[in-house]
C-alpha cells in the first residue's frame, strides 16, 4: 500500500512538474528582436521571453493595440531599447518600475540625428523635433552593455539564478565581441571608402568602424521616384560611393538601375525583427560577410 502511494506521488510530481516550472518562469517582454534574443540567451530556462510584434513590420514604428499593451503590462520585466526606439512606448501606459532601459548607461554616447523638421505653435513657443539614432545594437560593444543591463535586471528579479545568468552572459559577450572583431577586421582595410545607406539606421555601425557612410531615405520594397534618383545622383557627386547598404532585399529594378550607375547593392539587416531563418547572431555574421565583400 505504501509503495502504491509513493508511486502515485511520484507520477503526480512528474505530471505537474513542467507546469510548475512554467508558471515559475519570469515573463519578459521586449520591444525589439535583438533584446529578445539577448534575454533568451541570458535567461535560458529561467524566463519566457516574448516579443509580440508581427513579423512583417519594423518594431521601431509599430503601434501595438490595447490587448498587446495589456500583455506588456503583465510582464515581470519590459526590456526597452532606449535612444527613442519604439515611439509607441510614449503613447501607452506601462509600469515604469518594471521597465528596463537597456541603453541608459551609454545614453551620453547616443548619436543625435540632425533635425529634419521643427515647428512652433501654441503656448509652448518654438519647439524642435530633434531625434536620436536608435539602432544601438549595431555597435556590438554597445550590444554587450545592453546585454549586461538585461543580466542585471534579471538578477534583481531572480537573485538565486545569478550564476546562471552571468555564465550565459559571458557566452553571449564572447559571441558579440567575436562579431565586433570580425567586423573591425573586415572593414579596417578601407573604412574611409564612400558608402551609401538606403536608410539612416547605420549610425552606430559607422561610428564604431569609422565607415564613410551617408544615407538616403529609400524603402527596399519600393522603387524610388525620379526625385529620389536625382537626389542620389547629387549625393554621389560629392560622395562617390560604389556600394549601397540595404536593410532588406531591395527591389530588383532598384538593384539594376543602381548597377547601371555603378553602385552595387548589399544587404545589412539590422535584425530589428525576428528573422525568418536563423537568429540574431547568424544574421549579423551574414552581414559581416557582406561587408567583407565590400571592403575586400
Amino acid at each position, binding site marked *: 500500500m505504501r509503495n502504491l502511494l509513493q508511486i502515485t506521488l511520484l507520477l503526480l510530481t512528474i505530471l505537474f512538474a513542467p507546469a510548475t516550472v512554467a508558471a515559475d518562469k519570469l515573463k519578459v517582454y521586449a520591444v525589439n528582436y535583438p533584446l529578445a534574443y539577448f534575454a533568451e540567451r541570458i535567461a535560458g530556462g529561467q524566463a519566457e521571453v516574448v516579443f509580440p510584434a508581427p513579423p512583417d513590420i519594423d518594431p521601431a514604428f509599430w503601434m501595438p493595440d490595447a490587448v498587446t499593451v495589456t500583455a506588456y503590462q503583465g510582464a515581470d520585466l519590459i526590456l526597452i531599447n532606449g535612444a527613442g526606439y519604439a515611439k509607441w512606448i510614449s503613447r501607452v*501606459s*506601462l*509600469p515604469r518600475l518594471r521597465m528596463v532601459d537597456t541603453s541608459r548607461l551609454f545614453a551620453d554616447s547616443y548619436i543625435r540625428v540632425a533635425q*529634419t523638421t521643427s515647428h*512652433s*505653435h*501654441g503656448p*509652448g513657443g518654438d519647439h524642435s523635433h530633434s531625434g536620436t539614432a536608435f539602432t544601438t545594437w549595431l555597435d556590438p560593444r554597445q550590444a554587450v552593455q545592453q546585454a549586461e543591463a538585461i543580466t542585471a535586471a534579471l538578477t534583481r528579479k531572480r537573485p538565486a539564478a545569478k550564476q546562471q545568468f552571468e555564465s550565459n552572459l559571458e557566452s553571449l559577450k564572447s559571441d558579440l565581441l567575436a562579431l565586433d572583431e570580425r567586423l573591425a577586421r573586415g572593414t579596417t582595410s578601407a573604412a574611409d571608402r564612400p558608402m551609401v545607406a538606403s536608410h539612416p539606421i547605420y549610425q552606430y555601425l559607422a561610428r564604431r568602424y569609422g565607415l564613410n557612410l551617408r544615407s538616403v531615405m529609400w524603402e527596399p520594397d519600393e522603387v524610388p521616384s525620379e526625385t529620389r534618383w536625382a537626389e542620389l545622383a547629387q549625393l554621389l557627386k560629392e560622395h562617390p560611393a560604389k556600394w549601397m547598404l540595404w536593410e532588406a532585399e531591395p527591389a530588383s529594378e532598384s538593384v539594376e538601375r543602381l548597377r547601371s550607375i555603378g553602385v552595387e547593392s548589399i544587404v545589412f539587416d539590422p535584425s530589428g525583427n525576428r528573422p525568418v531563418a536563423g537568429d540574431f547572431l547568424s544574421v549579423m555574421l551574414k552581414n559581416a560577410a557582406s561587408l567583407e565583400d565590400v571592403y575586400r
Partner: protein
Amino acid sequence: MIDSIYIAWRYVSYNWVRSLTLVACVTLIAVLPLSLELLLDESERQLLSRAETTPLVVGAKGSSLDLVMNSLYFGETLPELISMADAEGVTESGLAQSLPLYVRFKARGAPVVGATLDYFDFRGLHIAQGRNLALLGECVLGARAAEKLGLKSGDHLLSSPESLFDLAGVYPLKMQVVGILEPAHSADDLAVFVDLKTAWVIQGLVHGHTDLTSVTDPTLVMDRSQGNVTATAKLPQYAQITPENIDSFHFHGDPADYPITAVIALPYDDKFSAILRGRFVAGEQPLQIQVPGEVIEGLLANIFRIKSVLDAVILVVGLSTVLALVLVFALSLRLRQREIQTIFKLGCSRLAIARFLGAEIAIILAASALLTLLLLGVVEHYDEQLVRTLFIR
C-alpha cells in the same frame, strides 16, 4: 412601581410637545461630543492609515502639509512643481523606487491623478469593471467618482480647464473611461486616474495635430524656413486621442523636464530610507522629503488641540442646558402644584408623588439615551463618508 411608570408615561404622552423638547435637549447634549469623538477617531484612522503606508514623499520645498495632502488625499492646494528628472534622481540613488505623481487637473470636479501603473500596484487598486489604462488619453475612475459622475466603462469624460478666462489656453481633453476601480475606501475612490503622459496632454505639453509639412492652408503657417515650420495659433490640436490620430501625439523637449507635483519614494529598507532622507536634508537641492506619517500626526495634534477647545465649549453649553432643564422641571413642578395637591388629597404619600416625578424624568432620559444611541449608530455607519465629506475632501 409599574403604576408609577404607567402614570408617568401617560403624563409624558399627554404633554408630548414639552416631553419631546426635553428629549431633544438631552439628546443633543449627549450626541454632539460623542459624534465629534467618533468622527475624529475615524478621520485619524483614515489619515494615518494612508500616511503610514506611504513611506516617503518628495516634492518642492514649501508647505509639507500641502505636499502630503496633495499627494495622498489629492487636496486642492497645488504644491510647487518639480520635474521627472527629480523622480529619476530618486531611482538613480539606488536607495528607493519612485512613483511620480501629477495631481493638478480636475474633470467635472473630481481630481485627475496622473500616475504610472505602478501606483495601482502600490495602493493595491484593482479593476472592477473594464480594463486598466493602456493607451494615451484613457482614464480609470475610482468607485465613488464613477458613481458621482454617473460614468461607466466606455463613456467619455472631459477635463476641466484650469481657468475659465484662459481663452487661448489648451483645449479640454476628451478622455475615454476604460475601467472602474473596486472601492478602496480611501481618497483613491474619488479620483480620476490617468497616465502621467495623459496629464501632460491635458496640460498641452504633449499634443497631436496634422502634419505641418503637409499643411496647405497658408493661415496655419507663420513661417517656413530651412527645416523649420512655424505654425500659427490657429493650428487645431486634437482634443481627443483616437487610434487614427494617436501616432501624431508627440513630446516637445526632454521628458525629464516635464512637471510633476511629487514623488512617492519607496526605500528598499529602513537604512536606505534614513540615507535618502539625510541626502535631502544635507543637500542644497530645492526639494524636501517628508515622512507622511509624521506630517499627518502633526496635523492631528493641531486637530486635537482644536478638539479640546470644542470640548470645553460643549461642556459649557451642556452645563447651561442642564441648568435650563433643571429650571424647566422646577417651573413645571410649580405649575403642577394643584395636581400634586390633588394626588396628595387622594391619599398618595409624598414618596409616591416623588416616584411619579422620578419616573417622568427617567422616561425622558431613557428616550434621550435611546435616540442618542440611534444617532450615534447612524454616525458610525456613515463615519467614513462623513469624514471624507467634512474633513478630507
